[in-house]
């Protein structure tokens, strides 16, 4: 259940505070201007730290999402409606 998660950055919101890279250096590095580059998926052992990074972001620019390979958003919407 915990597999196949990834961290998504909403770059419009991000203001390069850099707390995420402090809290989750395993998969986040900062570019030369201080904006996060996410380099791996959120594995089960990283999930707690990832949640802390999400909560710590002052701009609410981070979230944990299911990894690619999921159905497209419109298909997912259709499924939700038919439930």
């Amino acid at each position, binding site marked *: 259940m915990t597999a196949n998660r990834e961290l998504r950055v909403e*770059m419009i919101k991000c203001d390069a505070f850099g707390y995420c890279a402090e809290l989750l250096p395993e998969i986040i590095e900062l570019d030369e201007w201080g904006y996060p580059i996410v380099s791996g998926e959120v594995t089960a052992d990283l999930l707690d730290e990832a949640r802390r990074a999400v909560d710590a972001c002052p701009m609410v620019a981070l979230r944990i999402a299911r990894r690619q390979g999921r159905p497209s958003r419109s298909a997912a919407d259709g499924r939700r409606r038919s439930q």
Partner: protein
Amino acid sequence: MSVAALERPRIHGRLLVAHDPGHPAHLSTYGALPPFDRRRMLAEVEASGLTGRGGAGFPTATKLNSVAQHRRTTVVANGTEGEPASAKDLALLTRNPHLVLDGLAVAARLVGARDPVVAVASLAAAQALDAAIAERAWERARLVVVPDRFVVGEESALVSAVRGGDAKPTGKRPFESGILVQNVETLANLALVARFGASWFRAAGTDDEPGTALATVGGAVARRGVVEFELGTSLGDLVSRCGGLTDDVDAVLIGGYFGRWLTYDPDLRLTAEALRARGGALGARVIIPLARTSCGVAEVARVTRYLAGESAGQCGPCVFGLAALADELDEFARGRGGNDRVAQLKRQIARRGACAHPDGALGFATSGLALFAEEVERHRRGICTATNLEPVLPTP
């Protein structure tokens, strides 16, 4: 001219054939828009194979069908044409505004939108549409004039601007929330499909990429301007129709400022597929052969600087990355830039923006550096072979 003239072999004219922009000339050229059944027309559009003519080339039927599923829908005709090198939407809107408005009416009907909007960013386009809308007392279409910036044509930025907000991308895809944004040339084609059907539409172009498209041809050709061509036409034929090359040419920019620099090859077919095979894209069909007498390195640097300045200023990698890229390209133009630095910036810019702006600018710049590699080397030795220092690629 009548519909007969729209048939082969005089197929060069589908979109720009009306002899004046008024409604009577429009009717005598194309005839009236016939009534149609919504479902059947959606199927007809799908069968036509029409794709978006704004640059991304997304299948029009897919977008229509997706938006039509929403309860509340809006249609926005995108005539903003923020790219300074492109003039095809302005040509279409000033010469044939009624075909665009027909297309807007068809799209609104197909997705069930009540208050269709046509958005433009130039005074000339606004005046042409204002006059045309006044001639169509039987229908609603609202003209909205938005800021004339490069990024305003991006779908989510345009929707925000039309709603009175900032003309900045939001990172959302409008069609997923019931908002159909279609380029004006796409809508003009939709109006033709609604009149003459899918098989008529497919009589021009290739099987995979049917129809005609408008191109803005600039640079080293005798007659610069907007021409309509069948998809699949060779680059050489298109250039011939612009009076041929005026100079020796090695390089051509295809697809505009989000496009790619490619080796000039008259046999290159102008289709999305053929361009993709060479690492390029047709985009909105800005085609600029660069004379050997001009400096490609300087052109790339100058336009990259312009694109950096046209960032909406929202995403760090775009704001800082493109500025740094423009700095480095200025260094190249002075014979000092480093490929390692460009590679480092590329890693920090690629796929990190909320819209296509940083990736588009990055592709323009890096394809230029690759194609002009020899000239870059000469610059490092203090030599520039250009004899004409006039800027070629237009910036405002």
